[in-house]
């Protein structure tokens, strides 16, 4: 059981009311002909009920909407997701991480800026000094993350260097058991980062856990000027988190694990501590997104606190409405913890990780 910083019942109730109000606004937006998207207007017509009139709260979303189907993001042209209010405004097309075949695509305009501007307020100036450079080493390409990190650097008054890593290629290499090539590709990525760190002044890094570990074996991160690391993308179990904090970052470089993807944005974590046994708990950027830990067999039911279940995501912005999407992840449900007055998800790992080996790649 994790120690928790108490969140008052009033704060929890206030957050719930704020979420319900936000739900009403967003559902109204997406299911009104003046503002809504072709997909959802068409969906409501076929469903035979009008969410704009009948959805009053987040609980109503759970009760009335089925799980969002990821095929919709693969099979349909992106135009169907354009809300009427955004019509004519060019959009970004973002794709999900390491999937092979036709990827899921989400369109957007400024959501990522909102998410990362908010996140900027959660990181310390000591670890990520303002007006100082960042390095992103990880999946760029068609992912939202690339623009998001650049925006994060920009809102903090600085700029970012980029080293790309193609996770789809890595997954393919591992699935084909081409471990030598995968290793060589990872070395290629790391070598580029080392070159940047040797020749440019950088204090903040975004990367994935495995790349961070590999980078630290090639260069002394502290001596290279790194003071903060923002990390995400793959599983970090408690022992691995401890390894990163104690051995890789030597307990002196700031560590900010996040859980996120193209469909949600990013969920920040509360500070990782020894007292919590290095268990990382993430909190969704509510009310714009809501994470629940549900029973994998009976997905209407939320698991008890500190129990494992499947992660369900609901995204609620004017750009994108996605109710009850079942992520391919599982997590422990955690209690609210200051400053977050809603449930968290902890120790996120691929769904079914205990039963079968999941290819997450070297990245």
């Amino acid at each position, binding site marked *: 059981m994790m120690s928790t910083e108490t969140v008052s019942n009033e704060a929890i109730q206030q957050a719930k009311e704020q979420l319900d109000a936000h739900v009403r606004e967003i559902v109204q937006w997406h299911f009104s002909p003046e503002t809504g998207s072709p997909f959802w207007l068409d969906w409501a017509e076929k469903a035979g009920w009008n969410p704009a009139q009948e959805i009053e709260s987040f609980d109503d979303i759970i009760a009335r909407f089925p799980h969002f189907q990821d095929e919709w993001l693969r099979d349909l042209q992106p135009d169907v997701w354009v809300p009427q209010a955004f019509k004519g405004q060019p959009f970004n097309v973002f794709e999900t991480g390491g999937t092979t075949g036709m990827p899921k695509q989400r369109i957007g305009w400024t959501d990522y800026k909102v998410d990362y501007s908010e996140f900027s307020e959660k990181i310390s100036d000591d670890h990520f000094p303002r007006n100082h450079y960042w390095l992103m080493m990880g999946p760029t390409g068609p992912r939202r993350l690339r623009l998001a990190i650049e925006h994060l650097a920009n809102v903090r008054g600085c700029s970012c260097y980029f080293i790309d890593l193609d996770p789809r290629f890595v997954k393919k290499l591992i699935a084909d058991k081409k471990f030598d090539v995968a290793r060589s590709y990872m070395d290629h990525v790391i070598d580029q980062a080392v070159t940047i760190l040797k020749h440019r002044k950088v204090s903040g890094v975004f990367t994935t856990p495995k790349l961070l570990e590999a980078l630290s*074996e090639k260069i002394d991160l502290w001596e290279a000027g790194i003071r903060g690391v923002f990390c995400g993308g793959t599983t970090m*179990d408690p022992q691995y988190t*401890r*390894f990163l904090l104690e*051995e890789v970052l030597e307990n002196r470089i700031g560590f900010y694990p996040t859980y996120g993807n193209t469909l949600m944005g990013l969920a920040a974590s509360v500070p990782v501590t020894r007292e919590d046994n*290095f268990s990382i708990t993430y909190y969704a950027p509510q009310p714009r997104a809501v994470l629940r830990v549900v029973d994998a067999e009976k997905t209407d039911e939320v698991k008890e606190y500190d129990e494992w279940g499947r992660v369900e995501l609901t995204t609620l912005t004017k750009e994108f409405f996605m109710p009850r999407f079942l992520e391919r992840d599982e997590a422990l449900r955690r209690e609210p913890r200051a400053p977050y007055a809603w449930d968290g998800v902890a120790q996120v790992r691929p769904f079914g990780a205990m039963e079968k080996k999941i290819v997450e790649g070297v990245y």
Partner: protein
Amino acid sequence: MSSIPHIPCLRKGAPYESLDQIEIKGYSDGQTLASVSTVNGGIIRRDLRRIDQGKAALRKFTVDQLIDISAKAGEVFLNGSLPLGDKGHTQSPEDYISTLSATSGLPHVMVKRNMDKIHHALTHMRTVLTGLTRGLDFSILDKGYGAQFGTRISYYSTAKALGLVMPSNSPAVNSLWLPAIPLKTPVIIKPGREEPWTPYRLIQSFIAAGCPAEAFGFYPTDHEGAGVILESCGRALIFGDQNTTAQYANNPGIQIHGPGFSKILVGDDQIEHWPDFIDLMAASISENGGRSCINASAVVVPKYGKEIADALAKKLGPYKPTRPDDQGARLSGFANPKMAEYIDGAIAQDLKEPGAEDVTAHYREGSRKLEFEGGTYLCPTIVHCDSIAHPLANREFLCPYASVVEVPQAEMLEKIGPSLVVSAITKDPEFTEMLLDSDLIERLNLGAIPTMKISWDQPHEGNMFEFLYKRRSIEREE
């Protein structure tokens, strides 16, 4: 104090309790006997960067001093009570025997025999090193150079540490790495999943005897961690089957210890006396539960194959599982019942191929695979093959198993394939010369000598000194 011992990783000798732990359970009753910390490859890689400190700690001693420490360690290993983990538990020799038996399936009597072998190796380290170095003056290793045999000699160390990826099935294999310590080379050990006991007890024995703790790394880890150990130490040993070890076959820094395919050959000149050798053959096949790479897995004879197979089957077939503490125990249980199932299935499958007969079936009560008091056992199996080309003729299994096959003496050496130990029962000078000339045999016993007999002053599986040191030419101004 927790009732269950916790075995930590040892990072340069210092205990490290990981958040990732596995439980080691008794093979027959499922009782948890210890929790063991496991770490990822990244931790090992980091520690190996500082392994020079371990080496420096050993360099403060002379080889002679480390030989004395080894002898003391041998006594402590055999007779002492030693720390077991980091929660205040201790382990007596009796505890060691019973816990290792409970997790490995080896009966007490076999564990004790393995313990004695290790004790012997430690207490006879001078003899071992003399054999490995062919009588080198050890002070030459202390100074790095010197003169002996009328010439200048210098040796340098080839590795920052000796990496070890250990098995779970036979504790005596730990004796292979023991010379590394007096040869001033730290050891980095990944223990077998079910067998942390022996390497941990050996490390504690060395430390209790005065060896610097920094010389020891003990890392229960995963496949990635094993890879780090094998690739990063400079020199390493891996134990495993051909599937596990094949990828390292061409790496001179990695010594592979896989199946031995050890054999007994009988020459034309001795075959008429075959009944005299049945006890020797049976012992070579079945001692240590048939688990060693030096157990005979084939008996190759010029004639009387059926009769010899029948005599061996008659002797070994009635062997039955016993309680682990039975002094007459001859069979080992399987810590992993699936392994027994796999072996039993593999033998049964290949018996369907014409030309082979399980002769022990006539003398065995019940099936080859048996359950006894919650444990799984495989009974001895002697298969008569009518050709050495039969799939069962040159196989090795983790149980008392051997084929008996007829091959004309003149064709034996071209057909037996690589063999760790060959006991050749012959006095024929011509055949002896052919055997001595063969590059397929690692250890050759000439005469009626069991394959299980080993000599500590003669390495039968690679020379640890030649693995850890290289000679250089040297000139020094006087």
